[in-house]
């Protein structure tokens, strides 16, 4: 089975997470699969041409003409395309940042830029693994399911659920705006576990109820505007959709 790992406009933190967190298992992956494209790990097969792959993992948002061209080539040559991380699944910070920005110039010699988009705005995406960064465990789980012809799953619980399971003190109870109730879990409540509020970097949870959440904030006398600002930060295009439904 042929795998390929690509990056578009991003910090490459998701690909790096796979390298560092899979540790020696990366070597097993290398032995089991044909990894034909992974520019941080190997000289790609076929040079700069996008190789044929059974599963392509794509990190990053679509920002430049080069991103767009590459992504179309990836789609054309891959049977199954997985969005790897929040840039690819929702556009991440760049989605909002590239819309509010005033620029004199959008075109250089070879690079032209557009408003950032998740990859699903340009091509059909078969599965999304969210997270800033993506979780190596979720990646492994999804890969195992895919090669066994089982549909991969996304966490169907919120960050709140994981946070409470861990026994953390609730930040909302402490009077801090935290998006835990709205956010898709799977991260192990990494941020609230060190006292930092959740910014919903994995996008909305399946049961996200924006209206109820905003009412809770109101009851607690917490800043709703701040919650909306936080929601826009990572959740990108999905925040836009959620807010359209909720307000």
């Amino acid at each position, binding site marked *: 089975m042929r795998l390929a790992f690509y990056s578009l406009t991003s910090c490459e933190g998701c690909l790096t997470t796979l390298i*560092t967190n899979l540790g020696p298992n990366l070597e097993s992956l290398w032995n089991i699969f044909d990894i034909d494209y992974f520019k941080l790990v190997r000289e790609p097969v076929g040079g700069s041409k996008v190789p044929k792959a059974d599963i392509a993992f794509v990190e990053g948002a679509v920002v430049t003409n080069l991103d767009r061209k590459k992504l179309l080539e990836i789609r054309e040559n891959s049977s199954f395309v997985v969005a790897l991380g929040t840039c690819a699944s929702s556009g991440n910070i760049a989605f909002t*940042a590239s819309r509010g920005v005033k620029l004199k110039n959008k075109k250089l010699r070879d690079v032209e830029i557009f408003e950032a988009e998740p990859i699903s705005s340009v091509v059909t995406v078969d599965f999304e693994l969210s997270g800033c960064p993506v979780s190596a465990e979720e990646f492994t789980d999804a890969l195992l399911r895919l090669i066994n012809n089982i549909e991969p799953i996304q966490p169907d619980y919120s960050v709140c659920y994981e946070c409470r399971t861990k026994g953390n003190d609730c930040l909302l109870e402490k009077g801090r705006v935290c998006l835990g109730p709205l956010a898709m879990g799977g991260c192990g409540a990494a941020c609230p576990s060190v006292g930092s509020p959740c910014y919903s970097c994995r996008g909305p949870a399946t049961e996200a109820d924006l209206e109820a959440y905003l009412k809770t904030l109101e009851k607690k006398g917490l800043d709703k505007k701040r919650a909306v600002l936080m929601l826009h930060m990572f959740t990108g295009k999905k925040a836009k959709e959620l807010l359209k439904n909720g307000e």
Partner: protein
Amino acid sequence: MANSKEEVILDSSELRFIEGHGKLLVKASGKDIVAEFHNLEGPRFLTKYLQGKPAEMAPLVASRICGLCFTAHSINSAEAIEKALGIKVSREVRDLRNVLYLANNLRSHMMHLLYLSIPPIKGLISVLRLSDKDVFKAGARLLAKSTELIEIWGGRSVHVPNVVVGGFGAPMKGKELLNSVNELEGLLPDAKKFVEYALDLELPELERYRLLAGLKKPGFYPVHSEDANMALTDGSVLNNQSYFDGLEEVTKEYSTSKHVYYRKSEITVGALSRIMLNRNYLSAGARKLAEEVEWSMNPFLIVKAQAVEVVHYIEELVKQSQELSDVMMEAHNPGVCSTMDADAGMACSFRGSKGKGISIAEAPRGTLCHSCEVEDGLIKDYKVYTPTAVNSKSIEADAVEMVKRFRPIGMEKLKFVLEDLVRSYDPCLSCAVSLDAFD
């Protein structure tokens, strides 16, 4: 601009084994050689996004600049905001950040040496094809251990949420962290094995004079230190503000990121610059290894400089963590999470505050500078001068020098050496595009 006699003699196409997207183009026009280091990475406008946002959001956003040196960005960011707001962090917070910075640099160096720079120098398609499996395993263990340290310390292995304005979000997991650091000490033989392999590499000779720059503090090998000054190899010493004032942004029509000059000229930052300026202050084991190398201004030596630093970072991590063990133990650690203890949340506490702040530190790839202006608790301006933006001019100048000297061996052969040259600098194009060319 466009010259009809210009001939492209090398087009690397998209470079492999570097972070972000870019390529090297070399052109000949008569006897003139011109090199262009193209950043093709798209901008994510993170620093522009910060304008108008609450000051305490800066470390979280700045972290996303880079998936390899995120901890450097979040620490520099927290410190720049603290300086702007006049927040004084405790000695413990400063020391703990310094040690976390060491872990960050160790991880980034291991990633660069193991996966990115060494395999192509050895002519391999991947480090996973290294014939000496023990070298790979030793390196992989170090990479995994440094990642684990960051995870315990920072709350996640990438984009750590525990670095916040004012200190740390939660107290250190003292015991876990110390155990992990002690295990790191056990990996010193692994580190020496790996580093000796790196120091044995045969590298091309390319000495070209330029000014090297880095933090300097007599008696120390500074990484993240509040009272270190910037030093240049011409003997000049500058405080943070004068260094910052000397930085100049230069737009190139072929690159999404600007280049950064210092007082209109080229400077080079990074591991080799640090070794040239401070190698007398390396830890004992690292100093011994450093003595084996004949150091010069050959950019290929950056790889060996990073290798020596790997041992230094490990030895320092062990030493400094043991000195800090009391602070790391939760029970003895009430002062660490200063501002975040306030139940009221932080936005309120910063309201009405204003000021400017600069934070300069030695990130893996060289001197990293974050600057900000805050007004009424909101960010008014935010700038990030990354090592790659600073080194871009040096990369181009070295490529020209290389072609001038070695063109007779043929561009086909030279192409690989030129790609190795670019990678030696450990460029990060995702970082560099923080100073985007689109404004």
